[in-house]
């Protein structure tokens, strides 16, 4: 796990990106973990009857996967204070999603070190799945 130091962060710095294929197994695991069993997430026939191409990813799971990226990048010195995201297109089982982000700004107010990161998710076609996403992190000081 990385351990970023607030003082070393630069505006525009990229967050370590990652790619992930959305699988039916993951959708089912997420449904079981959150007790959210809306059938469009795992029942292909039901989803198609609703006019969808197939089972779709739960939007909130995308938020959790963005937090995973930020957490792995920022490490234990950072804690998430706020996350916002807008869902623009459905992500389907079988899609490979690319999670990216960068540091938009940093500030120190009242001894609190804060970093705002802008985040996005695209599918394998380059289509935007999540936009206007933003994470606000609070960094505690690390002794070098």
């Amino acid at each position, binding site marked *: 796990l990385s351990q970023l130091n607030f003082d070393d962060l630069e505006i525009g710095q990229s967050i370590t990106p990652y790619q992930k294929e959305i699988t039916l197994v993951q959708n089912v695991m997420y449904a079981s973990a959150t007790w959210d069993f809306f059938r469009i997430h795992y029942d292909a026939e039901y989803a198609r009857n609703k006019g969808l191409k197939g089972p779709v990813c739960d939007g909130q799971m995308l938020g959790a996967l963005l937090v995973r990226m930020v*957490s792995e990048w920022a490490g234990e010195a950072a*804690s998430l204070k706020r996350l916002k995201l807008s869902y623009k297109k459905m992500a389907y089982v079988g899609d490979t999603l690319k999670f990216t982000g960068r540091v938009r700004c940093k500030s120190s107010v009242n001894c609190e070190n804060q970093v705002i990161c802008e985040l996005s998710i695209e599918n394998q076609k380059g289509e935007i799945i999540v936009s206007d996403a933003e994470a606000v992190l609070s960094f505690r000081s690390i002794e070098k």
Partner: protein
Amino acid sequence: LETLNKLLNKEEVLGEISIDSSTIARFSQAIFGADSQRLAQPKDPEGKTIAPPTLIFEINPTFGGDINGSDGSYPSLRVLSQFGEVIRASNQYEILRRVREGDVITVYRRFDKIYKKQGKTGIMTFVDTQLRYIDENHNTIGINRETLIILHKDQISTKDRAET
């Protein structure tokens, strides 16, 4: 809109969530996979497992309740589904305290605003909702501001959300 407007500004209890170590472990495994033990389950000074930051906003607060409806949908969406197909447009989470093993969280829901917007597929109805998460000491530990879209029948097959 007139019927929907009757739902506005009334905060009600949506349900209660008890957090135990297996709740956290299952969620961490679903999101962090094989790395979940290493990355997603830190401990507090008392040795209690701390949940990933967004867990509380994602768990269905009617756990153990009505999951046998025809579509299995999340209850906060289902109350609106009589008006059309409901999808999420956005979420905004505010974390005031991380949830940990042993917490019992009560979830309150309030519909704040209902309005219509023109999209490429026609007029869509938007519902701004606030979910508040209160711990056993009556402290607010998180807020989820969620915007939902009610699609009319002819819009259901065109669910790509960039249409707005």
